[in-house]
């Protein structure tokens, strides 16, 4: 749980940092998306690696939960909790919501099964105005025609239902990480009372920052602070 959890925490943070480029010129998010696609086989290595991490994480959680239920046997007639945090007791429920969100998120922005009219492949191509660099190396040239991920994201979040679902799901993911991040240090034997207070604060700030970053994208779209590029594409598919 701890090792796969660590991998997935690393991924979700990296994913958020990449996505925050939506607040910059469309060149950034679109160039970034194009760069990831240009990785070709490497992209698939990363995707399969993450899929394996998710599967092991869920498999371990299932096996451990079944073992734990068996280990209790007869449940207590009087339920009582002394100090276990709410986040730690909600791990299974928040985990289910995160899994549901994950499936929707992939269907939405990777496969185009949800909101397909504003899916990147169904939007007019975007022409890069400047080259996109990664670590100083130019990876996408100016003038290249790429998928318009920037507009897809903004159009997607113009639906309040979708945006709210994202906000709630990522809120619960942050709550899941609050226990998960703290917990993995204990499992790996790297936690002790001497710095447990500090670790808890780091976990709390990390989760708050993660939630704030994720709230910002759909939040900004709902408040009208982010608009898609004006090329005659509309948020409401029925009007197209």
């Amino acid at each position, binding site marked *: 749980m701890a090792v796969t959890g660590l991998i997935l925490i690393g991924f979700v943070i990296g994913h958020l940092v990449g996505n925050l480029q939506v607040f910059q010129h469309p060149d950034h998010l679109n160039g970034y998306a194009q760069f990831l696609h240009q990785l070709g086989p490497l992209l698939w290595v990363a995707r399969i690696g993450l899929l394996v991490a998710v599967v092991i994480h869920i498999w371990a959680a299932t096996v451990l939960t079944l073992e734990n239920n068996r280990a209790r046997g007869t449940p207590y007639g009087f339920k009582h909790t002394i*100090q276990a945090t709410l986040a*730690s007791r909600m791990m299974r429920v928040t985990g289910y919501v995160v899994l549901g969100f994950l499936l929707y998120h992939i269907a939405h922005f990777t496969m185009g099964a949800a909101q397909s009219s504003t899916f990147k492949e169904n939007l007019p191509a975007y022409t890069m105005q400047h080259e996109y660099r990664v670590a100083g190396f130019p990876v996408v040239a100016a003038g290249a025609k790429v998928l318009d991920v920037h507009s897809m994201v903004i159009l997607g979040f113009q639906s309040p239902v979708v945006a709210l679902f994202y906000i709630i799901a990522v809120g619960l993911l942050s709550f899941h990480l609050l226990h998960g991040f703290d917990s993995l240090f204990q499992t790996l034997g790297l936690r002790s009372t001497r710095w447990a207070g500090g670790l808890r604060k780091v976990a709390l700030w990390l989760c708050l920052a993660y939630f704030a970053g994720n709230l910002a994208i759909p939040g900004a779209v709902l408040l009208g602070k982010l608009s898609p590029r004006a090329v005659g594409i509309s948020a409401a598919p029925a009007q197209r």
Partner: protein
Amino acid sequence: MVAENTAKNLSITLRVWRQDGPQAVGKFVDYQSKDLSPNMSFLEMLDVVNDDLTLKGEPPIAFAHDCREGICGTCSCTINGQPHGPGKGVATCQVYMRTFRDGDVITVEPFRAAAFPIVKDLITDRSAFDKIQQAGGFITARAGSAPEANALPVPKPDADLAMDAATCIGCGACVAACKNASAMLFVGAKVSHLGILPQGQAERDKRVVAMVDTMDALGFGNCTNQYECSAACPKLISHDFISRMNRDYLAATVRAAFKAVSLGGSGGS
């Protein structure tokens, strides 16, 4: 002389788990108990209730107890869902009736874990802990007269930490309190109390692996790092020992994979 008690006597409803034997089906039974002194210990209150039951010709409530001063680890009631009842760092025998209010309904159950089968009523068989101890909770040393005390220096911080772990009385409250009936705090304390000291080094790797594997085989649950165990522990043993055991177990497993072994044949046998 004991100071005069000014607190009012209390009456309570006791909701107790009654189970005739290991295979029998148990259920909660309510008993009224009136005019209890607030200075009674919880176990003394059970004695009073049992006296009444005996007079009425009903079987008394079976509960485990021995020293009644919090050092033997025999008493084992879950009171209102909390192993050893309310109060920090106390065993059931150190819970006093003044903790409760007149008219309270108090639910008393055995420690619940599949690895601690119920013998009768509130008594559980905790010999699973003995099996874990037998797997590695010892050092191999010449028994007999005590060795010269200064022959083996132990730094004071190590001695203190080892003693913190050694305060474990093996009562099983950690298992009872854990949402997963995990024995990690008990095993962590036992692994650490020897593993921190120089005397425990020779068998350190073998010990942690054997004790953890035995714990798993006995059907205890897994740690989800909620720390209910250390909160319920009558000796307030820290869950730092669980972290330490995890680290030790990981290191021992890695070391075992790379450890050179003797090919035998040399040394003239």
